[in-house]
């Protein structure tokens, strides 16, 4: 009996080896090439089959032959070459073929292990097994030793002709019934082999049912998953800040080949990312350039996606669309060059006569202004600096009308006075909206008032200062312009200067012809001295034949009452460049 058992054990061992325990020697068809990627060959052998990194596999091609005597079909195999396993999972490994062999290998080719089998233990599985064994039914040490060989032979015969699932169940039942069998390792390998065959069968069925001729990648993905490969891990450094308006070249080093890669970049706030394909530079470098137009403040955002060789989908490998890398971009520190059409000079001279008697009258003034303006556009649209003088005479219109040659009232007092106002101003133009501008002009100057009667104009500017009063004339002017600055617009404003008077104005500007700017204004003012208000109707007409200069003519008609009216005019010269 003892001898019989020993013999049976040897036989079962051989059968198990034939069944899959030693595929390379007994059944070369038990291992198969399941996928090929260049020189990498995927084989359904793994640690459970005693295959790990460093193992050697032999690649076989199948030959179908027919016996001419019996007409029986025979399947034989012959060796093509050897493969070196570079990585292995439980049931799948990747083997590297040389260039020559790689050109001849096909999916479905048989493979057998030629290097010795190794045991690759899963520490966690061993721990589970130990705990299971510890918790199992107690073993009676006095019980007779079962005939392990007979049990194994019976199980083997039971499995013949069955599907892999039934075979697995039968072998698992044997392990449960005879936990001390010496063939446990071989049986475990057989079970693993059956699992692999079942997966292959399922994959083949899925492949057969698929209508896609490119249905290879999902399988590769699954195989990769079986190998337990992690997603690409990234190590990188990024630019913290960059100068605006300069292209940014990015370079990448890939430790593994990639098929294609794309750099996505955008200026922060843009609707989407611009795509730039990475270009190869040598064996391992990839480069891409972020266009200079995208490099502007406050930041440029970017990420990289790459596709593995043969893979259809690209995956983020450095940043992502939701969490891009950012390079802060400096704000331009160089002042923009002087732009055309931003500079403006106004020179104007105007004579205003309210009583129509010109120099013989007592209600008129002359005003001259010169200013320079530059349009910065932002944050202040325009700044204007100017100088002006206002010189004239004025008084109560009732007295002037009653004594048009003397301006002396009933009490014998000269009620008219001459005023000289010399002032400077600066005007800021702010754009509330594209067609709405607010112009604020503070101004300050010297007001000289001549209180003596019948004196010459400008006496207080000379050496005879008797009767001259001097004061600081502080004032300002605020205007609101609606419409285009050089086209059609309406301006509403108010101005006040202490000692000189107040002015309210509304002006409408348009260009009835491209070279003819026209402005009609209505003013209410008590200038040159704060007495009675009058109404002025003013028309300005320019002629803009040249782009950089145009003259304009002003005519005005004004009145303080029905009798107190006058016609006046002025000239202006405007420069634009």
């Amino acid at each position, binding site marked *: 009996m003892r001898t019989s058992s020993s013999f049976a054990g040897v036989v079962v061992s051989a059968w198990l080896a034939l069944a899959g325990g030693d595929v390379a020697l007994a059944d070369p068809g038990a291992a198969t090439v399941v*996928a*090929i990627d260049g020189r990498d060959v995927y084989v359904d052998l793994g640690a459970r089959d005693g295959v790990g990194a460093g193992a050697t596999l032999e690649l076989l091609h199948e030959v179908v032959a027919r016996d001419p005597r019996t007409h029986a079909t025979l399947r034989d195999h012959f060796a093509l070459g050897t493969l070196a396993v570079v990585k292995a999972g439980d049931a799948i490994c*990747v083997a590297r073929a040389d260039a020559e062999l790689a050109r001849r290998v096909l999916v479905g080719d048989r493979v057998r292990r030629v290097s010795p089998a190794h045991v690759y233990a899963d520490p966690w599985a061993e721990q589970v097994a130990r705990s299971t064994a510890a918790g199992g039914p107690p073993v009676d040490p006095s019980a007779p030793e079962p005939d392990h060989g007979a049990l194994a032979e019976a199980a083997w015969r039971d499995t013949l002709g069955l599907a892999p699932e039934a075979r697995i169940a039968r072998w698992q039942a044997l392990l449960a019934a005879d936990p001390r069998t010496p063939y446990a390792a071989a049986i475990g390998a057989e079970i693993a082999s059956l699992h692999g065959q079942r997966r292959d069968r399922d994959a083949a069925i899925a492949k057969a049912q698929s209508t896609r001729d*490119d249905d*290879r*990648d999902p399988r590769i993905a699954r*195989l*990769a998953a079986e*190998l337990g490969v992690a997603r*690409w*891990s*990234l*190590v*990188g*450094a*990024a*630019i913290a800040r*960059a100068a605006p308006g300069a292209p940014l*070249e*990015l*370079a*990448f*080093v890939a*430790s*593994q*080949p*990639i*098929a294609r890669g*794309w750099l996505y970049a955008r200026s922060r706030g843009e*609707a*989407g*990312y*611009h795509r730039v394909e990475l270009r190869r530079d040598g064996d391992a470098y990839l480069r891409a350039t972020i266009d200079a137009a995208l490099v502007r403040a406050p930041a440029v955002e970017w990420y*990289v996606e*790459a*596709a593995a*060789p*043969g893979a*259809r989908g*690209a995956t983020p*490998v*450095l940043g992502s669309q939701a969490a891009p890398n950012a390079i802060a971009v400096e704000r331009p520190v160089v002042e923009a060059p002087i732009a055309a059409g931003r500079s403006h000079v106004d020179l104007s001279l105007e004579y205003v006569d309210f009583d129509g008697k010109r120099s013989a009258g007592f209600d008129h003034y002359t005003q001259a202004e010169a200013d320079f303006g530059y349009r910065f556009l932002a944050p202040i649209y325009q700044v204007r600096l100017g100088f002006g003088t206002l010189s004239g005479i004025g008084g109560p219109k*009732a007295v002037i009308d009653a004594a048009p040659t003397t301006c002396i009232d009933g009490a014998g007092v000269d009620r008219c006075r001459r005023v000289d106002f010399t002032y400077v101003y600066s005007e800021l133009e702010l754009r509330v909206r594209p067609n709405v501008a607010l112009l604020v002009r503070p101004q300050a100057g010297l007001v000289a008032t001549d209180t003596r009667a019948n004196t010459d104009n400008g006496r207080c500017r000379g050496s005879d200062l008797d009767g001259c009063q001097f004061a600081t004339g502080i004032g300002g002017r605020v205007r609101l312009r609606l419409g285009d600055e050089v086209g059609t617009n*309406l301006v509403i404003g108010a101005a006040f200067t202490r000692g000189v008077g107040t002015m309210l104005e509304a002006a*409408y500007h348009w260009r009835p012809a491209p070279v003819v700017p026209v402005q*009609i204004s*209505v003013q*209410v003012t008590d200038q040159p001295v704060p007495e*009675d*208000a009058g*109404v*002025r*109707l003013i028309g300005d007409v320019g002629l803009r034949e040249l782009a950089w200069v145009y003259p304009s003519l002003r005519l005005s*008609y*004004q*009145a*303080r*009452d*029905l009798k107190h*009216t006058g016609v006046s005019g002025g000239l202006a010269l405007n420069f634009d460049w």
Partner: protein
Amino acid sequence: MKPIVVLVAGALASVVVGRGVAAAAIVHVPPADAPLGAAVELVVDAPAETPTLVAHVRTTGMREFRAIELVRRDDGRWLTVVTVAMPGLDYYLAAGGEPVFATPAWPHTLVAREDAETLRRGRDDVRSARRRSRIHTAGEYVDYGYHTDASGARIADRYYRIDADFSYRLWAYPLEEIRVGYTRLLGDARMAECPGGTSCSEVGFKVAGWFELGLAAVEGVHLDARGMVMATAAGFAVGGRAEARLGTLDASHVAVGVESLADVGTAGYFRLGWGTVARTPMAATVEVTNLPSSTRPTGVRFFYDLGRELGGGVRASVRVGYAARTQEVAGIAGGAGLTVDF
């Protein structure tokens, strides 16, 4: 150029296999609506690895296409933003140089849809014969006849008025039009109307300047509002005028209005205008007024305006009317006007 070196440390074998990428599905649904001047997004559903997507666009009627590369919005969508001008936008999409939506020979056309304001502006443009500026002058003489005072003296009750204005049709609704003008109104004075008890011969004003806004929140319903400043016999004064109008001023319309000129007086009127005769607009107006002085009794006026289009945007008009202040004081009125549109 500032290089960045990044180490892409990929674990082995996560990447594998695959012999060529099948043509990816590229789907584009053209925008259903393309408002004129508005930014329109052209969105394409395509995978990340799709060849370069380019929109080739041109304004309908032009020859050359302009290429705009689409940018990636999210995983599966690419877009570009275009502005649609009149009359529309032709475009086709290409991936990797190959048309994937429409073709250069048969581009897809987005017809520009004008918004309501643009359409209204177009109608106003037609009404005005594409002339947006107007110069208008008018003179009127109103004679109520003679009034006999307590001493038996005959005192004239008459005045004349001159208006000159310029208007520009902005069509920036509700602001349709802006107008600036000058008015002169002088009449024979009575002793009681002279300020300060002094003698005077005239009432009214020589200088009045004004601005008027033509508002129309709803097409065809107009409100003209005018602010005036003037130098009357009493000095500086402020006045105003408002007119509500249904219909077009130069065609059939009804209007009601009021004008107040400080111590010069006030007038209220109702006008019916019609443009039933080609190139000959007409209007009839009834007015209740105490011009040229607010101290005078209220009178009524009826006058008829007849215009004639002379061509080139020029229109001449005449006015005839009858004015009565009391049973004893009544007379005729007449005037003329000239309007130039350009």
